[in-house]
């Protein structure tokens, strides 16, 4: 007499299907290594507040210092969040009229703001030793405005200027 077929296997519970993460891991690892190799994290310290920065082949690494934004509307603090002046622009320090005033080579508003800034940092217990000022000047602003800014800041003991520019692609290609 033939034995009845075993019914045991019918009761083996099937394993639930699992998504294989291995290809995704491979892809993520490759992208992570590529991104880490290609981009310098230091660059993330400086965010362009305006899109129409001048173009340059300078390759100096951006640093985070006291940052100002110079546009055709005047001189602004750099904002970390979007304000009503637009993205990246904070409070207006110097108006366009003050820049356009050819009778004066100084910018009293800026000198006052820089002095207040130093006083605030002193009151917070910070050592005020930096002489560096980062300026994001739009490519179309008049040259005399930049010179006025340099002159006024120099009077307030800021004598190292770092103008933010957009990198041009090197002749050999690449980033």
């Amino acid at each position, binding site marked *: 007499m033939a034995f009845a077929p075993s019914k045991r296997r019918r009761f083996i519970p099937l394993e639930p299907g699992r998504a294989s*993460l291995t290809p*995704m*891991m491979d892809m*993520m*690892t490759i*992208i*992570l290594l590529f*991104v*880490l190799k*290609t*981009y*310098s*994290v230091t*660059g*993330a310290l*400086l*965010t*362009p507040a305006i899109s129409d*920065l*001048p*173009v*340059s*082949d*300078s*390759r*100096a*690494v*951006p*640093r985070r210092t006291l940052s100002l934004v110079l546009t055709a509307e005047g001189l602004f603090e750099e904002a970390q969040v979007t304000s009503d002046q637009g993205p990246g622009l904070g409070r207006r320090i110097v108006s366009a009229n003050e820049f356009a005033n*050819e009778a004066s080579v100084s910018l009293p508003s800026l000198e006052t703001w820089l002095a207040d800034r130093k006083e605030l940092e002193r009151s917070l217990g910070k050592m005020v030793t930096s002489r560096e000022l*980062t300026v994001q*000047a*739009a*490519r*179309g*602003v*008049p*040259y*005399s*405005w*930049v*010179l006025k800014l*340099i002159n006024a800041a*120099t009077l307030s003991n800021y*004598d*190292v*200027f*770092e*103008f*933010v*520019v*957009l*990198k041009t692609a090197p*002749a050999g290609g690449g*980033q």
Partner: protein
Amino acid sequence: MAYRPSRKRKVTPPGAEINFTPVMNLVVVLIPLLLSVAQFVNVSLLDYQPPPAESLANASPDSRDLRERLELVVNVVSDGFEISLFGATSGRNFKRIPLTRSGAHNIDALQAELVRIRRDIVGSPIDTVEEADPMTGMPVRRPVYRFPDADVLNVAASGDTPWQLVVSVMDAARSYTDDAGRSHPLFALPRLGQIQ
């Protein structure tokens, strides 16, 4: 007759799997972070340090450098560039570079002229000297040329000149690349001034 061994023994135990979840968490956070900052790394800086307030006239006679000065000046004017050496306003030490046919300032011709001045007039260093770096205070060896202002380019432009044009002039004067692909310094210390 012996029974056939049960097949249940041959069932291999499930292998221990590496737990990828913490790594995945890290990677999933890092990749969007790096990708989000990637758009900003095309930013660079253009360093500018104005000359110290003490002028040459105020310096004591002992501290004055009596060597002849190059006094390289690039005037950015509406019809092109004017390049002056040794304070000349005409003659062989004064050159005009007109606009291009499209009406733009000829940056390439300006750089070619600056390269010529560097090679033919400034020449090679005559000595080296150890100085403290003004920014870091660390001692650095600096080449000495026959002109004390051999690295200085005075840029003068009218007040309504767009900032981009002045940046382009400073770029052209910073360095150049020779035919072999090597980079050489030109006049890396700009001094900005205005034509009244």
